[in-house]
């Protein structure tokens, strides 16, 4: 038998899993380039790292989605972060171990990690 408390725990846990089915237009969007070039450069583990990190921190207003080739294949894996009302920030040559910093500094605290952004590569 489940008590009210246990039901609430199931609710929270499942809600995290179902979060991406919610339609949010005002939320934060993380878009990972997952075309052939991105995949070859290692975008899949990057995508997985973002999904993991966002879930771990229970950031329910963040959507992690994918897109096709962004056009700068030599700088893949490319990740774009859209904060509402701000210009997008493009990160290049992202590796899974950089994801934690991007999430904590940029997505949670609003300060882009400048050293990973496209400005440093061009």
């Amino acid at each position, binding site marked *: *038998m*489940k*008590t*009210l408390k246990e*039901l609430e725990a*199931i*609710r929270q*846990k*499942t*809600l*995290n*899993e*179902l979060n*991406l*089915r919610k*339609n949010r237009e005002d939320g934060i969007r993380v878009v*990972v*380039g*997952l*075309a*052939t070039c991105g*995949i070859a450069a290692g975008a*899949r583990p990057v*995508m*997985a790292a973002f*999904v*993991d990190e966002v*879930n771990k921190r229970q950031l329910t207003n963040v*959507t*992690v*989605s*994918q*897109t*096709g*080739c962004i056009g700068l294949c030599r700088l893949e894996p490319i990740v774009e972060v859209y904060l509402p009302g701000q210009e997008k920030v493009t990160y290049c040559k992202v590796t899974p171990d950089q994801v934690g910093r991007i999430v904590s500094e940029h997505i949670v605290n609003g300060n882009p990690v400048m050293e990973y952004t496209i400005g440093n590569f061009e």
Partner: protein
Amino acid sequence: MIYRSHVLVCAGTGCTSSNSLRIIENFHKKLEETGYDKEVQVIRTGCFGLCAAGPIVVVYPEGVYYSHVKPEDVEEIVNEHIIKGRPVQRLIYKEHDESGVNTTLNDSDFYKKQHRIALRNCGMIDPENIDEYIAFDGYKALGKVLTEMTRDEVIDTVIRSGLRGRGGGGFPTGLKWKFAKAPESDVKYVCCNADEGDPGAFMDRSVLEGDPHSVLEAMTIAGYAIGAQQGYIYVRAEYPIAVKRLRVAIGQAREYGLLGDNIMDTGFKFDIDLRLGSGAFVCGEETALLASIEGGRGEPRPRPPFPAVKGLFGKPTLLNNVETYANICQIILNGPEWFASMGTEKSKGTKVFALGGKINNTGLVEIPMGTTLREVIYEIGGGIPNGKKFKAAQTGGPSGGCIPAQHLDVPIDYDNLISIGSMMGSGGMIVMDEDNCMVNIAKFFLEFTVDESCGKCPPCRIGTRRMLEMLEKITSGKGEPGDIEKLEKLAYNIKAAALCGLGQTAPNPVLSTIRYFRDEYEAHIYEKRCPAGVCKALLQYTIDPEKCRGCSLCARKCPAGAISGEIKKPFVIDPAKCIKCGACMEACKFGAISKK
């Protein structure tokens, strides 16, 4: 388990019949092959509502809305969209109007104007996974009721919401609960009417297939409110998917202790069982339904006593329809004022309609009461195919009536529909265009009720058959002056004398078509002509001598040998021999043959 993407595939009855289970299978296979099965989850959901565009696949987080997907399209969706992030443009849903733009689910005209309460979880969750239901506030209302509310408070909440029975009658639900609570009895029952019999209505099926727990939870709340410990869902055996998902849902609820003894550790005891009906329309009538659950013949009995006093096995019984229950939990959670803020003065909340017939977006729509028929048909429904003209909409199935074009702007609610000679019924809405003969439509619905009459009372058993015979006479060109008046007189007598709702409402389709389309009846009787060109006996095929080239193709196609003539000279049809099959008209390459 956290996935980066969810692929939702409709596994309601509509999409299943166009092979959506193969689509699901292919997704599993393909994702496994490519090694993406740990990143992408495939979920079978209930009905999305837009059955005309099925099978439907929705991919989240993008919310890309694919329509008319075939099993062989899965490979392309996985290779392009899932792996490379490029949605497959050719499969994305497109609007019917000229704009033809690709849209996501929530942006489409079909969904934008809807307000989904009863259908809130349909197409959103996996109906066979209780955790997903719980995630979207499932069993929260039950928790609130059991821990914070008294039985009277629950009933008072339902009364104040203004919810009325969605099965057809429109009786205030809260009052029904109050009447069922009133009698003192050690045993009471809560029943759910899922014997959806109207041709063209399928909202109850969709709720049961897409969100079965919402009905279980609401019935448990009702059990608490009226003091019952046992519930029965009377569901048609013709709904195998609904039956299966209900069984799964009941099993899961029992496992979680949400049904059974000591629910949520509050000491409250309630359980639900299924009873399958074998498809008699009359068993949707409450007393017949209860008789059928008891194992007796599905025949109605006179009321009073009403089921609230003396129902199932002679005990006080509460009986509500599926869609009514589907609203209850939201009313408890959001408050009665929230629900009552939607709709018209006497009809609160939303209503689900099953759009069918001559309309582009066949499917289920849930709209606030008070929406006009024009909005439903032209804005949500996408209008009438092939640019044809709207003639009438039939609501309420075989118990309802036709709404003609002049009433397109009447706000839809219980009372308005009755005042224009139709009724809400269970919410079937069949759209008809200029090619439909209204006399023939009335005959069609009457054939249904004649067939489904249980035979207990003579007005229904004999009266409706006599009416049908008169309609057959009229449509076969043998109508006589005075037939319309005779039909009307008999109709009123049946309405006054029949035992149950089936007989009392059976004449409605005839009465409402006479009311609005008397000219069509008159054309059939006096001019022996069917204005819509449907009634075969009244049709005349003729060859236009100007257009006929004398090729003899029609004469060779005619199975009755009714066409004769000389090559290269106009041919003629002998009306005495013609069987009006239309083969000549289809064969003619010059458009020389017409029917009228």
